[in-house]
């Protein structure tokens, strides 16, 4: 429609300026909007802000539905309350609150984070239910359902009244916000995003899934503890029932409503969750809001009608939800009673209409309007000829076996790759090539036999251990880190994170122009090259390429052959699975042939082409002489 305004400023600087302005405004607000009630709401909003920024770490960045945050919040609150009762000072009590949430949170993380999706959600839900039971029943400590009362302790001789406590909460929110942002933009945060998209690739490239998951969960728990501590001092009275399933659902929905993977989103969500009861009790304000929502949600429908097409589900569903909300708001006498239902309708409209939440939708708009100055990129250094040198044999497999149920996928494979050698691995589909690579790279544990990479034996069935022994691989079915840019994908694979070296790897595969592009927006061929660059960035002692040319166009295949040739020249040992015969014939020193899980031939490409067993595997038994041997990929 119209060109965006170019802002001569980095995005991060602009965001920081806006944020500081908002915080100054919030700090000044009690002077304008007076009254104990308003102050209570604002304080609650700040506390929920800390809590939701923590929740966003697991729900947004880690991408796992975490239902334990309300319980961790409760643990933080009780931890603080009990230490205050024991006479602790304010900072000490807050620390106790953080510890009270962090320790059980980390303990839960270890078993729970090996799970995914529904199983993870369930284990956190069980933990939450268990926590509330314990708080209710351990009456000698928590005073059970009767509740626990405390008096807010002074901060270093300073008596805190409601306003100054609000300011303290704002400071806590700012600190939580800033530190979360720094943490999640660091290598650590990038690793979390990477493992959300592909845990297998994250482990195979030596980044490490489990410890990053545990750390993310621990960070979220610590913030829940801090929020809990502030909450206890704010209200002065705690009851287990207040931290149950209802609160949990509200928090989760607050994060989604505001926008996942964004501190702004968490803040907006917190504001909505805190203000909600108030919004619903004020009938006029609520009617205005519903009408506004109705108008907004009907715009896409009208647009669809004008362009004479059937509206999509994501356009009709929010409009229908808002229409029901409007009917409830204007015709139901006891609207207070329908609070949860109306909230659910709003949420439904937002989750369907804006899957990225309000902050996400606003950010998309802003990027259309304003262009920020991009981060400068350093010149490329390094490049392919810089592998870790080592002596001896690059890969030694002895009598390797793996079966799935009754299927012997790999049976008694013994094989060696010498230093600097490129070994081609060919065979008909289903002959066990990828399973062999999976065994070497540690995705599967072998049933028997051993793998030795560059002189060390990695732990069985451990991707991480195989990677630290020196193996690196690409995947037949792409495993990109969709949330990261090309440059970031390389940087998290490096031992030392030097941007210029990462640029060097990108230049080596011809992607230096696309450094800032997200993987989700890159083409299939580019992603294949990016996977090779990722593997190279770990500086492998053994590079395994699993059908790198699959699905590539002819010009891309020529590029690929040149690239592999240059890697070969740098004396990096390569195990290459490939079906294109010109690629295998041109690049490989020796070729191994698999059929039915067994190694049936090993030799130079020339020898393999004439091996009767290979011809039989590819073409069937009888008529070997009559056919041209073009089906054999070497």
């Amino acid at each position, binding site marked *: 429609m119209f060109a965006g305004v170019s802002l001569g400023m980095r995005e991060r600087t602009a965001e920081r300026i806006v944020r500081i302005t908002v915080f100054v405004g919030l700090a000044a607000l009690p002077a304008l909007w007076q009254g104990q009630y308003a102050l209570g709401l604002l304080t609650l909003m700040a506390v929920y802000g800390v809590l939701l920024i923590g929740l966003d770490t697991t729900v947004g960045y880690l991408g796992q539905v975490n239902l334990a945050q309300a319980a961790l919040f409760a643990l933080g609150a009780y931890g603080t309350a009990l230490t205050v009762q024991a006479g602790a000072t304010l900072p000490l009590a807050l620390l106790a609150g953080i510890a009270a949430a962090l320790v059980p949170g980390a303990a839960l993380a270890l078993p729970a984070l090996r799970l995914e*999706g529904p199983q993870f959600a369930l284990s956190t839900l*069980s*933990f939450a239910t268990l926590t509330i039971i314990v708080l209710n029943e351990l009456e000698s400590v928590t005073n059970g359902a009767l509740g626990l009362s405390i008096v807010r302790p002074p901060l270093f001789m300073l008596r805190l009244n409601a306003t100054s406590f609000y300011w303290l909460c704002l400071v806590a929110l700012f600190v939580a916000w800033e530190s979360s942002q720094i943490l999640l933009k660091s290598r650590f945060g990038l690793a979390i995003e990477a493992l959300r998209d592909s845990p297998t690739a994250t482990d195979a490239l030596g980044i490490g899934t489990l410890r990053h998951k545990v750390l993310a969960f621990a960070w979220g728990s610590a913030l829940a503890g801090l929020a809990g501590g502030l909450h206890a001092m704010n209200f002065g009275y705690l009851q287990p029932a207040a931290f149950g399933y209802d609160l949990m659902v509200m928090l989760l929905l607050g994060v989604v409503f505001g926008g996942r993977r964004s501190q702004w989103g968490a803040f907006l969500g917190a504001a909505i969750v805190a203000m909600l009861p108030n919004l619903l009790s004020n009938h006029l304000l609520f009617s205005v809001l519903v009408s506004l929502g109705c108008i907004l949600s009907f715009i896409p429908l009208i647009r669809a009608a004008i362009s004479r097409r059937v509206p999509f589900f994501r356009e009709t569903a929010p409009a229908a939800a808002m229409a029901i909300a409007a009917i409830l708001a204007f015709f139901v006498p006891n609207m207070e009673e*329908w609070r949860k239902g109306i909230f*659910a309708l709003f949420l439904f409209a937002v989750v369907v209409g804006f899957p990225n939440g309000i902050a996400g939708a606003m950010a998309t708009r802003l990027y259309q309007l304003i262009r920020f100055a991009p981060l400068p990129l350093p010149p490329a250094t390094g490049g392919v000829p810089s592998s870790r040198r080592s002596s001896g044999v690059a890969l030694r497999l002895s009598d390797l076996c793996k079966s799935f149920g009754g299927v012997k996928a790999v049976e008694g494979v013994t094989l060696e790759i010498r230093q600097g050698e490129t070994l081609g691995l060919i065979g008909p589909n289903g002959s066990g090539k990828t399973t062999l690579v*999976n065994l070497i790279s540690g995705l599967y544990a072998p049933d028997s036999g051993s793998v030795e990479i560059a002189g060390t034996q990695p732990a069985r069935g451990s991707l991480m251990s195989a990677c630290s022994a020196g193996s690196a691989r690409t995947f037949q079915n792409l495993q990109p880190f969709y949330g990261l840019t090309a440059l970031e994908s390389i940087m998290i694979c490096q031992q030392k994170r030097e941007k210029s070296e990462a640029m060097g790897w990108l230049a080596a595969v011809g992607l230096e122009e696309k450094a800032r592009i997200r993987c989700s927006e890159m083409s299939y061929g580019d992603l294949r090259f990016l996977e090779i660059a990722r593997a190279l960035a770990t500086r492998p002692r053994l590079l395994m390429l699993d059908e790198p040319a699959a699905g590539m166009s002819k010009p891309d295949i020529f590029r690929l052959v040149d690239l592999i040739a240059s890697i070969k020249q740098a004396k990096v040992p390569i195990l290459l699975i490939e079906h294109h015969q010109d690629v295998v014939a041109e690049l490989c020193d020796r070729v191994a042939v698999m059929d039915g899980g067994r190694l049936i031939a090993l030799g130079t490409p020339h020898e393999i082409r004439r091996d009767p067993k290979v011809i039989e595997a590819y073409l069937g038994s009888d008529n070997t002489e009559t056919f041209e041997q073009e089906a054999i990929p070497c």
Partner: protein
Amino acid sequence: MNTEFLALAQMAVGGGLMGMAYALVAYGFQLTHAAGKAVNFGQGELVMLGAFAGLSLSTAALPYWVSVSGAMAVGAALGWFVERTAVRLALQQRNEGWILLTIIVGLFAVSAAENIWGREDKPFPTPWPEGALEFFGISVTWPELAIAAGALGIMTLVELAKRYTMAGIAVQAVSADQDAAELCGIRSRSAISLSWAISGMSAAFAGTIIAPVTTVGPTMAASLTLKAFSVAVVAGLDSSFGLLLAGIALGATENISGFLLGSGWREAPGLILLILALALRPQGLFGKKIIRKV
């Protein structure tokens, strides 16, 4: 016989029978997970709505069997509705939004139930005779027997339908490989919708057999979702035989721990066992091992 032991056995039997209802609700999770790899986090709400629907039909002086069938029809319609509104789009976009959307639909259901039927717990009328049967000194009431018979009956019927009707075989094909099924001319969307409707139906039926034992109320939903989900995950999301065992075990554990530790602690041991079971066998006790493919 030792009275202490007899009391424990009584608890175990009562809990185990109730556990079969958990297994039936869990079976609903399994059906939808097999077809579309998604589960309804508002399944407990469907159980509650089914029970309320049955209650309303009974109070309208309809015979028991008619109201149960009516409740099952309502449940099937609601199951279909949840799939259409909350799950389909999110699964197409391949994100986890369905977890949240099913929670949201459940939230609305609770709010609606509170306003339509009220917040109090209500008794659910049945035609079963009063009193209890005695087996070896352990008494079992008729509604409890109805839970066992109903749960087994519905699960058997659905399993048979899955194996011997064309629609059931189509659903199985879709759960094995959606793309391949579509290439064979099976409408995978309809198959998924069908399994959500069946899942909703069994949830509603579960409501009508649980309610006579526990009473009906909006609060029954949340705890049922958790229990049924625990049963489904511990058993493994692909083993219907495991469901019954896990359900009975959970119900019995709950009752016994309530008896030994006090009613407040009733659910605690089951939850601890659940977390441990998940940590040790993420695919469930009876589930097939997941092989990662790349």
